[in-house]
């Protein structure tokens, strides 16, 4: 064990910091759940890629830097520290990208990964269906083989970024006789294909951050299948594993939120201390963000040495999502009667963006597998408790 960065790691950090200082927009971009914001975030992805910072863990041949997970954590720390824009293509680069590298053919990798890296193609995820949420194996949208095409019919929902995205990925039932986890196939679908209809769903903040996607006999070439036919569940679980695991929510994000929360508390101390529980809640936010960071470094070190992510990664999702809620609840409690005010509205000086973060934090325990599902996974697969 050696909990200090190497010279090489320090140099990488310095390089990332210098580039971000030069390139991060001075003003925060509008939300990527608006048309203009989406376009600006896409431009930012292109710029990041030009600096070869789009996806630092990818191989150099794909525009990455072949970084290991420790360097990825360093990159993320600098990224959040610099207040750089949110990653509009996170479904692509963090979820589908790693899955493509594991399951994709060489042709698929060459076709999809470079355009994913540049932001030329932004990805939406297509997991849930109206009757398949936590119970994802209840999927009914079907893909019927017709020569060298699949013909897709059905509906996906809660598809994040689908309103302005270019592509979606998901699992579809290719064997009509099958049930549950069998007979599903992982397919990549262009959202401009004939027969695709995207209907935006306004989320809690009023913006269309997700959408329903309707498929009406959409023809997709067989080469858009990822992995073997009928093996879609396994491919999807690999993707969900990345999501729950390391990539989607890096600790830097929570450390920066905790740092801002400490600052908010210090700036409003007299009012905040009227509620004696606030001080402890702020301190706990720091402790938990620190614990999440340490845990992630430990996991990253283990993976670098050839270890595998196991069922214990289900504890991550619960930990960060509840931490995120707790931090934002505490911030609103410090802001007191002004907490309800939207930024830039009358009387809202100094409220910052805590309200947006609070609203978003409500989704954390739900998406990527509800925390109740995660608790079942922990109990059954990590602790070995009896199945129902």
């Amino acid at each position, binding site marked *: *064990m*050696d*909990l*200090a*960065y*190497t010279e090489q*790691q320090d140099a990488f*950090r310095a390089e990332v910091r210098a580039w971000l200082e030069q390139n991060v927009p001075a003003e925060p971009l509008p939300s990527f759940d608006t048309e203009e914001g989406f376009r600006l975030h896409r431009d930012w992805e292109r710029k990041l890629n030009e600096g070869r910072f789009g996806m630092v863990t990818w191989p150099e041949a794909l525009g990455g830097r072949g970084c290991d997970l*420790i360097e990825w954590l*360093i990159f*993320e*720390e*600098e990224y*959040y*520290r610099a207040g750089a824009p949110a990653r509009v293509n996170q479904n692509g680069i963090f979820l589908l990208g790693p899955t493509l590298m594991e399951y994709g053919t060489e042709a698929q990798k060459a076709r999809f990964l470079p355009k994913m890296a540049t932001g030329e193609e932004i990805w939406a995820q297509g997991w849930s269906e109206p009757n398949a949420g936590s119970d994802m194996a209840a999927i009914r949208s079907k893909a019927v083989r017709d020569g060298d095409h699949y013909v897709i019919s059905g509906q996906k929902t809660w598809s994040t970024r689908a309103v302005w995205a270019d592509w979606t990925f998901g699992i579809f039932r290719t064997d009509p006789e099958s049930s549950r986890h069998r007979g599903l196939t992982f397919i990549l679908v262009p959202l401009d294909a004939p027969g695709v209809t995207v209907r935006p769903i306004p989320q809690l903040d009023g913006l269309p951050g997700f959408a329903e996607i309707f498929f009406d006999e959409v023809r997709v070439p067989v080469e858009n299948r990822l992995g073997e036919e009928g093996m879609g569940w396994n491919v999807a679980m690999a993707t969900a594993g990345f999501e729950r695991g390391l990539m989607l929510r890096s*600790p*830097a*994000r929570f*450390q*920066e939120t*905790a*740092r801002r929360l*400490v600052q908010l*508390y*210090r700036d409003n101390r007299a009012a905040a201390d009227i509620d004696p529980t606030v*001080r*402890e809640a*702020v*301190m706990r936010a*720091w*402790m*938990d963000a*620190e*614990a*999440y*960071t*340490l*845990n992630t*470094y*430990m996991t*990253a*070190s*283990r993976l670098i040495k050839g270890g595998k992510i196991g069922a*214990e990664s289900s*504890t991550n999702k*619960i*930990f960060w999502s509840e931490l995120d809620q707790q931090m934002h609840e505490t911030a609103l409690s410090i802001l007191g009667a002004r907490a309800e005010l939207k930024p830039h509205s009358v009387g809202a000086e100094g409220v910052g963006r805590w309200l947006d973060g609070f609203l978003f934090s409500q989704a954390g325990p739900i998406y990527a597998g509800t925390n*109740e599902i*995660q*608790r*079942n996974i*922990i*109990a*059954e697969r*990590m*602790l070995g*408790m*009896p*199945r*129902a």
Partner: protein
Amino acid sequence: MDFTFSDDQLAFHDSVKGFLTNEVTPEAIRDLWQRDGGRSDELWGQLAELGLTAMTVPEQYGGLGLDALDFVLLAQECGYAALPEPLVETVMVAVPLLAGLADEHRQLQEHWLSRVASGEARLAVGHPSNPLVADAHIADLLLLCHGDEIHAVPAQQVQLRASESVDPSRRLFAVDWTPSDATRVAGGESGRRLQAEALDHGALACAAQQLGLANRMIDIAVDYSFERKQFGSAVGSFQAVKHLMANVAVKAEFSRAVLYRAAFAAARGQANAAIAASHAKIVATEAALLAARNGIQVHGAMGYTWEVDLHIFMKRAWALDGAWGTRGFHKARVGDFVFADGAPLGAGATFEAR
């Protein structure tokens, strides 16, 4: 940056875990409860034979010259086993305290540390954070704080009054003694520093045991959840029961890296060692306390009995909660750190520079 244990550390951990699993069973612990003094010279001898009492003793005194990072996994296993013998406090607190005295006490160090390493002598520590002294009755030398000072007092010069803990394995004593120039081994600035280090080491020792205890209580409750049937099913198949245990697993899982970082910081004498130890003590204790609360709940009425082994571990967790600094004390220290001007917070501030 490498957050893994070495193969040597892991191999030693495995062998000690095997020993404790076979030798320090709940039956053996219950047996010790019946004995006068509650301790076993034979067991201590076995621990010494394994090299455990020598771990942190400097090589020049016949020890292995290892540190808190080498011992933390073993301390966790001692918690998992609820080992009654004071091995963790000896290795992590008493030995470093004695070894940390100024050079003028080399003779004293050599005399006692070589005997601790070989298992011939035992130490106990009286520290202001603990109102009583644990295992004073089997100690040959007591390291006792008095104001800023530290005194090394042979067993013949103290009188003990036994107290009683909720944990029948704990043996606590009020120690009556008279400080003198002859017994004083540190004072002033160095006395304060050694006392502060002893507190941090004690907190770390508790944290490691608490995490082990939490894991043991999870295992016991999970086993029971298979055995006990209600409504025709194992109670562990019910979601409400599963989630009780999953919540403990989350807390335990997110204490681990905090604990290991604290051990690393202590071993390297880093500036953040005190805060890291406090953080570890808080979260590992919370994991153990939740494991106790949810563990008893999973057991139903059986969890409230003397018969079921769960209480061996619950009671240790409850007892260690207040030892080597209460949670209030440790939270206050973390708070002072977090809310200080210029505190190193935020992304990238976690690890100290080389």
